[in-house]
């Protein structure tokens, strides 16, 4: 009661020291990119352009939310790009086959969406079970499925392109091109996935267990946690996130080919790492991943708008930023 006021109110300096500066680096990078972008081109800060950036970020972002679980759990999933391509191809073939029958076009699209979500879960479960029950390194398993899914989509497309029936495109189109309250549907979807992911990761037992397993699997096992089950579920979540991204992606081009989703796995992993999640597992944040995905999309956008650097150097800039992000993390995790 009689404590001096000064003791109760922390000084500014003490408050500043308590701010987790290192966790804020991704955010600082994002702000920096926004400043650079607005200086480069007057059209940059328009809502059209920024929504365009967010819409493009949505695919990688949604996949990266799933990737955050996998990586925090101490794993890695290299197969997401191929999985997206395969699911896209399979979805289009199924919908084309059903079209013209007794089912309305809307019904066909809904069946297609259901099939993709179900297949995503199964594909994720296959990765997860091979890793946990088969006791094979995640890198190896998902490198294998990366090849498998990629070759399956090439086979389905017979080396060419699988195109969605035009009548179906008209029905499906709004899922990518539509907007709700002025905000594009993919951006809504990204936001919903991110919020649900954040709640799951930070507020539930499952999320806590994922972090515990990534931090020290043996401690988790001795604490009576079902390590294999939790770890498998992280891959199932990853598969589901890939499926959601596919649902948004297919109406964009209405086609799938052997080159669909190429290098998405790298961008998704990059978004997770730029967002401050430790590659060795144990800790990380969904919001960081969201920032990471938006940053990657912004880099492409800024390079498009400027003539100073060729847009073909997009990969170079992204690569430098990824390496830089990990370099910044080192101070936190070294020892």
């Amino acid at each position, binding site marked *: 009661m009689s404590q001096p006021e000064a003791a109760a109110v922390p000084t500014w300096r003490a408050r500043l020291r308590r701010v987790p500066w290192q966790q804020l680096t991704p955010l600082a990078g994002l702000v920096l990119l926004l400043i650079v972008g607005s200086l480069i081109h007057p059209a940059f800060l328009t809502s059209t352009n920024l929504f365009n950036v967010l819409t493009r970020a949505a695919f990688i972002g949604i996949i990266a939310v799933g990737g955050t679980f996998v990586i925090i759990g101490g794993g890695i999933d290299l197969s997401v790009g191929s999985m997206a391509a395969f699911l896209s191809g399979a979805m289009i073939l199924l919908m084309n086959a059903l079209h013209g029958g007794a089912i309305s076009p809307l019904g066909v699209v809904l069946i297609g969406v259901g099939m993709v979500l179900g297949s995503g879960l199964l594909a994720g479960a296959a990765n997860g079970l091979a890793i946990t029950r088969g006791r094979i390194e995640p890198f190896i398993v998902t490198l294998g499925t990366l090849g498998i899914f990629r070759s399956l989509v090439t086979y389905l497309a017979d080396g060419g392109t699988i195109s969605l029936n035009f009548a179906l495109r008209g029905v499906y189109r709004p899922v990518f091109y539509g907007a709700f309250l002025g905000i594009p549907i993919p951006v809504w979807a990204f936001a919903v996935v991110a919020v649900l992911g954040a*709640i799951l990761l930070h*507020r*539930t*037992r499952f999320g*806590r*267990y994922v*972090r*515990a397993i990534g*931090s*020290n699997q*043996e*401690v*988790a*096992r*001795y*604490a*009576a*946690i*079902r390590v294999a089950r939790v770890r498998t579920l992280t891959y199932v979540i990853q598969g589901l996130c890939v499926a959601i991204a596919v649902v948004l992606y297919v109406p964009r081009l209405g086609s799938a080919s052997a080159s669909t989703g190429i290098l998405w796995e790298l961008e998704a992993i990059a978004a997770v790492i730029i967002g401050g999640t430790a590659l060795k597992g*144990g*800790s990380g944040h969904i919001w960081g991943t969201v920032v990471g995905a938006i940053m990657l999309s912004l880099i492409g956008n800024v390079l498009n708008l400027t003539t100073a650097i060729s847009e073909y150097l997009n990969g170079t800039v992204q690569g430098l930023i990824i390496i830089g992000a990990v370099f910044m993390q080192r101070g936190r995790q070294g020892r």
Partner: protein
Amino acid sequence: MVAREPILRGTGLSMAFGPIEVLHAVDVDVRPGEVHALVGENGAGKSTLMKLLSGYHRPTAGDVVLDGQPTRFRDSNAAEAAGIVLIHQELNLVPDLTVEENVFLGREPHRFGLVDRGAARRATAELLATLRTEVPVTRRVRELSVSQAQMVEIAKAVSRKVRVLCMDEPTDVLTGRETEVLFDLVRRLTADGVAILYVSHKLDEVMAIADRVTILRDGDKIGTFATADLTPAEMARRMVGRDLADMYPPKVRPGPEAPWALEVEGLDVPGFVRGATLAVRRGEVLGVAGLVGAGRTELFEGVLGLRPAHGSVRKDGRPVRWRHPEDAKLDRVAYLTEDRKGKGLLLSKQLRENVTLQSLERFARPFVDLRAEQAALERSAKEFDVRVARLDIEAAALSGGNQQKVVLAKLMLTEPDVVILDEPTRGIDIGTKRQIYFYVAELLARGVAIVLISSELSEILGLAHRVVVMHDGRVTGTLDGDGLDEETVMAYATGLRRDPPPGLQEAPTQEVDRVPA
């Protein structure tokens, strides 16, 4: 012994970590050809003193004197170059390199710009031969037993012209036979004039091997004595500074009507345990004694579903089959691991997350209630007397004793009625030990059954109502705790005595090599 000039001396050595001084103006000298033991309770400053002398730390006051010259080792490499080598408890070898590659790591002999493996191999083989150690030089260290790896460490030290060999609890990970081999080697080294500085808490070993003993207590030197002038009891009294009688709570025997809480019959853990049978009542401490490698930990890990096992297990008289630790948890059985840092705590996580990890379902409805967790942490910290300035720190920041209290608190939040404690006081100070012993008594009063696995016989004798002794994967005897003495337990632990197990045939168990982590 002829008093020769000491190789290495410490004069007025003090050491502080931050504001806390852990060693207060200690004098010590190490003479050629002697085994000089440093003994004391945990936290007495033995390891710190050893690290000052071998260049791992720099003293905050006082001097390290080498051959009469005050010296400041820049780091441990400088000390090694001067012939002062410290062998860590966690051996410092590269597991995937061969014996020869490890011995010459960083100073490989060269010929025409390439590593001369032949020369290195010959030199290593010669070295091992002079140490009379039979370790193949081309074997990878990963494939060696702990004792063999230790021999390689010693060979490495000898190849660097060691003059003072510092060993920190070297026999902790060795079996009795391996300890004998190590002592043989120590005797040969001292015969060549090498001085051995030896930290141990096993007083019988100190009596057997050391010429002189320096006793430390709470960072002060109590004195240096010729071993021949001391009895182990005197040594212990000087280490602790008080009588040990009040270390243990009075034993209260459960009545004969106390029901069996956990019964294990004919349990096999492939590669480790054969046909183990034991049982513990509610309100009883069942001690499990045996040498390192006897299979005690593996036996209970098998019971709990932490490793494959077959045999019959009953909980409260009901047959159970635990395939996963979660099954055991649901049947209210908890296991305190002997590997606190590797299996007990998420070192980089906060205490809050650690303490609720095993009972998180009690805090999630369905979202984890951080406030309830925090309240549980505060209650646990109070109940277990976790002494820290603040609770919002990582587990790694705690001392060993406090860490053990947090792990114990984590188990107890699951409200078990059978608690298996595996080396519960390893590496913790005497005050905390006593607290843990009295906590065990509290649990007994509540009707909890306790299994106490321990390599500290005094602890087993002080707490256990009955003692199961294991040797080489088998239960060799089940003894009454009253009037039991160390000699009897050791006779069973070393396999000299064994009571016939009920209805089990003799068959040799598989020899299991333990590999350094």
